[in-house]
């Protein structure tokens, strides 16, 4: 009994660690796609900002500076995306893919050029990372059964970015559904003509949205390399951007359901890691690839039948042009 409780608690703990970058990226995706811009480049922006965060932190010694550098890098990638597909009306999927390929190649090339470590950045010392924050009253909570363990292991003891990611969800929800900016953002993704004829610049709205998306991706990248990890490793984003995209669709472009989708996918991955090499009753050993594929399989299956139609923003993927 106690053992299985311990197992569940440690699973939940890893779920949160794994879900954090997913949450940042998925919220970034919501901002971008709600404004009508497909953001398949989440992956690349995250990878790029992870590299820049680690590099800047290593060079300056300050994770705060590293974080800002990461956000800056990710926003620049957003601007490239925007220039290609907002200003020049290019194909959003192609532009996003280009960013992913660019980030993948650029990080390795620069990494080798700068540090000669096969694409990795030098390991960061503890004080150069965002370290876990211990909540007060931990000792007292240790005496409370179950809830106490949950508090100590799952709620407390994460780095600041984990808590920020939760804030990001509420921030996203509030901005999109409760503010003037959000109303315009949703309108621009559904029917840009209506926004234009209301005297609001469609182009400016969309740039603003993808810049916010860029900031959030920057946080995701920084989390990977200077909070959760202690340095950058090549291809360290490992498809998380795509999983975040799946979570966003799964959550129907709504922040709160998307949060739960991220947690679910995080849980699946945590479970996969835990089950590696474990013989299961009747089934035997589950190949790790099966667990890795589960989020995608789940998205397809659930979208196909169970949660009803996920309706994308009406004008998604369509460049806005006035004349014709």
């Amino acid at each position: 009994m106690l053992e299985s409780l311990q197992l569940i608690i440690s699973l939940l703990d890893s779920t949160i660690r794994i879900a954090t970058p997913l949450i940042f990226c998925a919220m970034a995706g919501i901002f971008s796609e709600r404004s009508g811009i497909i953001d398949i480049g989440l992956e690349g922006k995250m990878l790029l900002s992870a590299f820049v965060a680690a590099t800047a932190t290593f060079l300056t010694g300050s994770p705060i500076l590293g974080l800002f550098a990461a956000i800056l890098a990710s926003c620049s990638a957003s601007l490239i995306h925007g220039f290609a597909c907002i200003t020049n009306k290019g194909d959003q999927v192609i532009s996003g893919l280009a960013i992913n390929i660019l980030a993948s190649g650029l990080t390795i090339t620069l990494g080798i050029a700068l540090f000669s470590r096969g694409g990795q950045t030098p390991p960061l010392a503890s004080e150069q990372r965002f370290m876990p924050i211990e909540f007060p009253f931990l000792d007292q909570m240790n005496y409370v059964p179950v809830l106490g363990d949950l508090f100590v292991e799952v709620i407390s003891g994460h780095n600041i970015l984990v808590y920020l990611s939760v804030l990001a969800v509420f921030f996203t929800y509030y901005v999109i559904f409760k503010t003037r900016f959000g109303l315009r953002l949703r309108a621009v993704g559904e029917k840009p003509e209506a926004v234009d004829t209301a005297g609001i610049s469609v182009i400016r709205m969309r740039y603003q949205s993808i810049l916010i998306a860029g900031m959030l991706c920057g946080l995701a990248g920084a989390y990977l390399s200077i909070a959760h990890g202690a340095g950058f490793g090549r291809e360290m984003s490992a498809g998380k951007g795509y999983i975040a995209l799946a979570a966003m669709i799964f959550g129907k472009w709504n922040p709160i359901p998307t949060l739960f989708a991220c947690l679910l996918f995080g849980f699946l991955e945590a479970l996969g890691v835990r089950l590696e090499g474990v013989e299961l009753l009747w089934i035997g050993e589950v190949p790790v690839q099966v667990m890795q594929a589960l989020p995608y399989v789940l998205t397809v299956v659930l979208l196909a039948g169970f949660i009803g139609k996920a309706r994308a923003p009406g004008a998604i993927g369509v460049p806005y042009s006035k004349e014709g």
Partner: protein
Amino acid sequence: MKTNENRRGNETIVSLPPYIKSAIELKNITKRFGHVVANSDVNLKVNPGTIHGIVGENGAGKSTLMNILFGLYKPDSGMIYLNDQAVDVNSPEKSIALGIGMVHQHFMLVPTFTVLENVMLGNEGSMFLKSGEEFVLNRLKGLSKNYGLDVDFEAIISDIPVGMQQRVEILKALNRGAKILILDEPTGVLTPQETIGLFDILRSLREQGVTIILITHKLKEIMSITDTVSVMRGGKVVADFSTEKTSPEELAENMVGRKVLLSIKKPSLKLGKKVLEVKNVSHESKDGVNVLKDISFDLKEGEILGIAGVAGNGQSELLDILSGIETLQRGQITVNDKTIVPSQEWNSKKAREFGVAHVPEDRQKRGLVLPFYNYENSILGYHRNEEYSSGFLMDKRKILNFVDDLVKNFDVRPRSSSISSGKLSGGNQQKLVLAREIESNPKILLVGQPTRGVDIGAIERIYEDLMKLKSKGTAILLVSVELDEIMSLSDRIVVMNQGTIVGETNSSDATELDLGKMMSGLEQV
């Protein structure tokens, strides 16, 4: 948040001082898109507090001109004066600030938003929606009472009828403080009753000093509501009239540039044997909605049966079933003494074999493959005919011979078989589709919206062709949302509402008002 934005719209609209000569004056406006001159040296003057009509065929430059006035397009040259003062309208933002509001032909409403959210968009009153909503709602209630613009502010746009969506558009403009209102083809989507309602609203706006520009191709509407009217042709204003002193015939002549026959000469009715019988046909759409309920009617040789109704009341589904695009779910159809029941094979190939030809409602989606050349489109659906192919391969020479004659006989312009159909105007695309279907010598011709988006000149020709076909003894089923068209072409009219036939009448007995009532489902006959 600028404070003056807050106050605008709360003011009651007052008449302009009498020394203002014109509310709007456009001087020498020219606008080119690439090589195409959309507006060439246009001059227009509208007096304050009047309703001014602009008529013209498709592509005459009406919408371009209004988009320039609204700041969506930048003119290449020319000046705009509002209340005798030169202004620079370079964006919708600017034009809205100057008191211009526009109701576009295709509504600029976000379908997933509520009425209130749509009206608020761009003038939210506050950074945060909650406080803004209360503020805008209060103002709206006043406006909606003053002008008889009844709407439910909490309703989602996609759930409300188009007539109400249009009122939302007008409210949107008034909420931004519009004193000049431009309406682009506002009645195209309305029932006759809704049109009357709209005109009442426009008159009450005029009384309160709003200047209105009405773009339309319906001459009857121009005659009934405008004070003055301008005619546009080929990007130019070719004539200005005071409405009292002109006639529909004169306007039509100016629009087309030659005399036009507005009335149709119907050949005498010579009914033959029954060629189509529809019995108890019902249909359920993919979403589980009963789009057709127990439809029965018949059609004889040489007869034109008109199906009237507001768009979306089952007419499209009926055409789809009869032409074999949709499967028959319940009921039976008898075509030329051959009966089709749901279990039998029924598709568009079969329909053509049975002598059913179809001019679809959406010619660009279903009638033509736009990037194809005319000669390819002209045999679409009939490409299996032996005369076009020699065995496995298509015989291009034979096809070209056939199509060269076709475009000549049916006056498709430009008269070329090797131009891609997407480059033709709407009217000529329609002529091409009609020509193809007529050339197949059908027993029954199904026609959907034959003149939607088609110029007066081409309409005249299409009507002539239909009449010729009728006198040859072909049975024609005509579906149209244009009541005038239904009334002047058909021998018999049935009216559809919500998937059922709500009335039937001989066209000689039909009045527009009665049909309108049936169309809106108010009255069963």
